């Protein structure tokens, strides 16, 4: 099977996110970067499917030159190929992003054949536009279902599970198909030392591609008004248990 997984490089925030002075980006001066969580699971899922079916995994990202790090990380956990659509790192709107990714995928498929399965993250951790995968798939004429937390390949068909309150829905798509996956579909592995070493040798296919901007524009990022809570300290240690249970009693949940 030929599998493509699309990932996004995002900052890894801790307890607070700060914004740059111009309001156009997250201040990442003191932050590390990571692969958006849903997509990290997408890479793991792609690698697991490839291990079971004897396929190859290509990872595609759109971002600054530094996003090569995320491609190398994917290679360190088992991906075979990395493709970077290199930008200046500024935030691209969803339509522009989708157009560039569509063009890149079309070119990859013209060279190496159609991808049987394309995995996207359900939404990116940062901008959360909830649409790039859907737009790309519509342009490619390929079916896509989002919110997927379970994948089973059964010959020419992919069976996918989507969580609903108290259970899940089942979808069955003929391959080639695409899915938007969510964290929880698997527990991503950690890279082995051998994987890390191998990933250093990954040859990254860097593509220069631009696309027309869409209709959504970022004006400014800002933090929401803090919910200031006057925390009532009920006490220290187990001696505070009666006071804590008083609270439960007052709220009527006891």
């Amino acid at each position, binding site marked *: 099977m030929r599998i493509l997984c699309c990932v996004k490089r995002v900052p890894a925030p801790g307890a607070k996110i700060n914004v740059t002075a111009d309001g156009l980006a997250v201040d990442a001066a003191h932050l590390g970067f990571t692969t958006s969580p849903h997509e990290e699971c997408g890479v793991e899922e792609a690698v697991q499917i490839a291990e079971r079916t004897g396929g190859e995994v290509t990872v595609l990202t759109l971002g600054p030159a530094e996003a090569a790090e995320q491609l190398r990380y994917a290679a360190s956990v088992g991906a075979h190929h990395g493709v970077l659509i290199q930008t200046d790192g500024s935030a691209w709107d969803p339509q522009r992003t989708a157009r560039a990714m569509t063009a890149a995928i079309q070119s990859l498929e013209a060279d190496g054949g159609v991808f049987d399965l394309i995995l996207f993250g359900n939404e990116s951790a940062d901008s959360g536009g909830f649409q790039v995968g859907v737009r790309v798939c519509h342009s490619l004429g390929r079916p896509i279902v989002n919110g997927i937390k379970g994948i089973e390949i059964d010959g020419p068909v992919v069976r996918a599970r989507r969580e609903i309150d108290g259970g899940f829905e089942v979808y069955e798509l003929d391959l080639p198909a695409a899915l938007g996956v969510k964290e929880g579909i698997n527990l991503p592995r950690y890279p082995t030392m051998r994987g890390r070493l191998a990933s250093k040798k990954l040859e990254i296919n860097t593509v220069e591609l631009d696309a027309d901007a869409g209709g959504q524009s970022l004006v400014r990022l800002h933090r929401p008004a803090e919910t200031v809570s006057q925390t009532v300290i009920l006490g220290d240690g187990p001696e505070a248990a009666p006071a804590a249970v008083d609270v439960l009693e007052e709220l009527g949940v*006891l």
Partner: protein
Amino acid sequence: MLLVVLEHDRGALGEPAREALTFGRTLAAKMGVEMHALAIGAGVATEQVAAVSGDHGTARLYTVDHDVLSDFGPEAWGQSLVQVIGELGPGAVLACGSERGNEVMAQAAARLDWPFVANCTDITPPDGGDGQWSMTRIQWGGSLLEDATLAAAGTALLTCGLHSVASAPVEPAPAAAPAVQAVPVDLDAHLARTVVKDRVVLEAGVTLPTAPVVVGGGRGVGSAEGFAPLEELAELLGGRVGCSRAVTNNGWRPHSDQVGQTGTRIAPEIYIASGISGAIQHWVGAMGSKHILAVNIDPEANMVVKANWAVIGDLHQVIPAMNAEIRRRRDRP
């Protein structure tokens, strides 16, 4: 006209539809237009759908029915919406930014090659004839906000962030039910390829998104076994156990228990957060809680600072002491 797309599950309207109608009412007033609603799917022209949309301020309800729409399907719903937009020409379309809502709007936007702005918390229609909308929308699951603009060719495609408004019917209740009108659509049979094939029910009763009490555990719990007293507390209170991402990453709990940006958004009467520092990833899933009681050894922990009440101490001692105290009070004659 503002068209609100109603999220429903086989004809039953839930909270996302009520929220979209509540949000839509304010938006329609700002646009100076009527609010209409659209229900897509076989057999959705039910009394409940008409009554709820009327109670929430809908002047007119459109329904779309077709063989392909036997159950939810993102492509079939998206294509239906495209045809309804073509037929009715609304000034804007709004849905709730739930999993289905965002997916259907993305499907419609992709087909039209129009922009779509997801998860807005506030929307301002164009001031003049330039068609430029402005809005505030959610980034990072709600820990950051984005002011954005939308240049709409015709109809603006929008969703409002899930739980960004509390749903409320119109007061006083409208005298008449909305007029119901079926809109014919022409759907290709191949759109059935992404329609739900089957459903599996895993659990009955109280689930994490609806639990009145959630007892959360984080890295401080230390192991899978360490959750036993938390399970006990949840059971005593008729609630559910939740956890942070650190816990699922360590394999101590299944991901379905995870509260957070990439897990479940909870909204209990009280969230008892024990051994949880309160990183952003977790906080955005927990911030819908009506009250928070934190149990933590660190009085400076983000979760303690944001809580209504806190016990400073080791959860391995505090939670069992709470369980014993609850039992003692219940056994009291």
